[in-house]
């Protein structure tokens, strides 16, 4: 198998690429993006309201980028955009599968992502561009799923390295009451143990329901948060685990003790941030903003990167055959550039894409992990998340 690729690549190098695509018909390479929108309360901040084209705008930019290269290669890329609710997701997935599409990008929660990838079956390559659950990369892993979204463990490890570099090892962990908050809190506990931090106190912020945004709601919040964080054990930093977006953004400046907040608010670990400018990021942000008339979100970046992986495979193999592309993406020869300053590659033990994690405030990138001080025998990126010896994934 390995041999086949080498031959393919050698063939690619010899093929003097035609200056003007002289092939009569460009090779079509179809893909789909399926976004499953849940009915949920609006976010705490209206700045976080999801735009209608969330994720799809990233797909459009990827198509532009792929097609610019495809123009020289005789390849034409397309990605259909499908939205669904949790109730209609299976039917929409079936409709995509009925079209014979073999590259499907999913933006959905953990459980839906897992169910849809099983529905897609072994012949289809599913890109997980949204779900962060560690179980999807562990006990519940699937061979046909490539995780482009970083896992909880990668995000919390990225922050843990920075906090240890900062010499802030005593953490006050506040997590929400939803199952996804609990899962995230588990990732924080694991990161603390892995990097030698200590969780000196844990509290649960219970979601009592009701509206999250009310006129002059800040009046009550201002009294509520200091009281909630009162008399905690001596700590260096407050860690918020709030996947459900109930309380974390109320914490900064309202904690009882004057301590920085990290995690779901304050300093936040992310795959992408619209202020990121390093490694050619400026041009990438500009291209996106011209196309979408808004700033790029993590979902857009992750969908873009998923479809760029397909495009990169098509360029390198000079093929539009889905079997060839899938095999190449899973081969050790594959890498993709994602404006993170180094090649991004797929972990063979759980199909997670290795990637640096940005630690961001509202306006800027404060740091990028892995931190230089954390070494690894094969790739510094494998200091983030579940490494080969720890994985529970068995394909």
């Amino acid at each position, binding site marked *: 198998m390995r041999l086949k690729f080498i031959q393919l690549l050698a063939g*690619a*190098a*010899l093929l*003097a*690429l*035609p*200056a*003007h695509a002289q092939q009569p018909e460009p090779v079509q390479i179809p893909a789909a993006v399926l976004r499953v929108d849940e009915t949920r309360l609006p976010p705490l901040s209206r700045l976080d309201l999801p735009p209608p084209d969330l994720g799809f705008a990233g797909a459009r930019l990827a198509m532009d*980028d792929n097609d*610019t*290269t495809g123009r*020289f*290669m005789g390849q034409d890329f397309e990605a259909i955009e499908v939205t669904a609710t949790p109730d209609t997701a299976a039917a929409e997935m079936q409709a995509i599968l009925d079209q014979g599409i073999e590259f499907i990008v999913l933006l959905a929660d953990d459980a839906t992502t897992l169910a849809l990838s099983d529905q897609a079956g072994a012949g289809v390559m599913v890109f997980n561009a949204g779900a962060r659950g560690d179980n999807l990369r562990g006990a519940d892993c699937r061979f046909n799923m490539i995780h482009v979204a970083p896992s909880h463990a990668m995000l919390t490890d990225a922050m843990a390295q920075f906090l240890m570099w900062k010499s802030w090892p005593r953490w006050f962990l506040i997590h929400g009451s939803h199952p996804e908050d609990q899962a995230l809190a588990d990732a924080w506990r694991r990161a603390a143990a892995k990097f030698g931090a200590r969780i000196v106190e844990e509290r649960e912020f219970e979601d009592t329901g009701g509206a999250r945004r009310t006129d002059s709601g800040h009046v009550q919040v201002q009294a509520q948060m200091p009281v909630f964080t009162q008399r905690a054990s001596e700590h260096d930093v407050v860690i918020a685990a709030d996947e459900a977006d109930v309380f974390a953004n109320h914490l900064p400046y309202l904690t009882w003790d004057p301590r920085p907040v990290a995690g779901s608010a304050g300093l936040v670990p992310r795959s992408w941030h619209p202020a990121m400018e390093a490694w*050619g990021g*400026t*041009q990438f942000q*500009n*291209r996106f903003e011209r196309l979408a008339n808004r700033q790029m979100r993590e979902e857009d970046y992750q969908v873009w990167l998923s479809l760029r992986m397909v495009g*990169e495979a098509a*360029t*390198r193999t000079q093929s539009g055959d889905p079997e060839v592309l899938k095999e190449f993406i899973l081969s050790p020869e594959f*890498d*993709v*550039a994602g404006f993170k*300053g*180094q*090649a991004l590659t797929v972990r063979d033990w759980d199909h997670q894409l290795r990637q640096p994690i940005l630690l961001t405030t509202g306006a800027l990138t404060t740091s990028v992990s892995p931190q230089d001080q954390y070494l*690894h025998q094969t*790739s*510094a*990126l494998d200091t983030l998340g579940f490494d080969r010896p720890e994985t529970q994934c068995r394909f």
Partner: protein
Amino acid sequence: MKHLFCSAALALTLLPGVALANRVFITNERSNDVTVLDGESFEVIGTYPVGNRPRGITISPDGSELYVCASDDDIVRVFDPETMQEMHTLPSGPDPELFVLHPSGNPLYIANEDDNLVTVVDVQTRQVLAEIPVGVEPEGMGVSPDGRYVVNTSETTNMAHFIDTETYEIVANVLVDSRPRFAQFTADGSKLYVTSEIGGTVSVIDPETYEITKKISFEIPGVLPEAIQPVGARVTSDGKKLYVALGPSNRVAVVDAETDEVIDYLLVGQRVWQLAFTPDERYLYTTNGNSNDVSIIDVQRDEVIRSVPVGQQPWGVVVAPD
């Protein structure tokens, strides 16, 4: 020393022809200025503001005009290298990053990173002669010694585009490894080197057949492969040695340019970016973006002999001709 330097500077202004030789110009991307070094004494002569986010820098073959890509001003600024006074500007298209002058000194070929274009500008009439659509994020620019081809590398399309300088048509596209940053012909035009930052390789391309004849890869004991990111490259005029800046690995690779095998790695400053020889090729200057200095390599001995602090985040470097 100071006194000596002053009298030297005085002599420079009196004898402009001699004076300029070996003067070294370094763009500082973050401090928005150019540091000028004396190529003999390695002393800083001065620091001069040059517009916003200066990156690519080059000088006319007669040494009379210094060109600077002011990326955030969307313009190329032209300076008198003697006085560092701005003479005029050239239209560049948006976000100019790197450029190359035709061997005759005209025109100037500019990569517009933000617009997927190569802009061709007549440096005398200051008119745009052509805009050539290329791949996504054009960056590196090389010109063949006979001036027939300009080669542009596009960072996201991962190709070296050969552009005919007569017709402005792309005549060939050569697929290379990820994020190609720089294109450098040998002086006899027989080989083209293209560096790939993320791919970690240098492709050796035969400009006659457009074929990749070899890929040079790098291995440094104790340095993880992802830190080895080839960016700037320069080859000696006798075609014997190629130097490749390896970015965050803080090394410059020395390559035997006859066999294209790596001979040595030289430790320089942090995030080494671009390179420039002195006209006699005795010294090679490197810009080190994260340590705010330049390293000076003795080319015969392949030793780093000095580092000189410059402005913030030095990016490009050019040495005045003899």
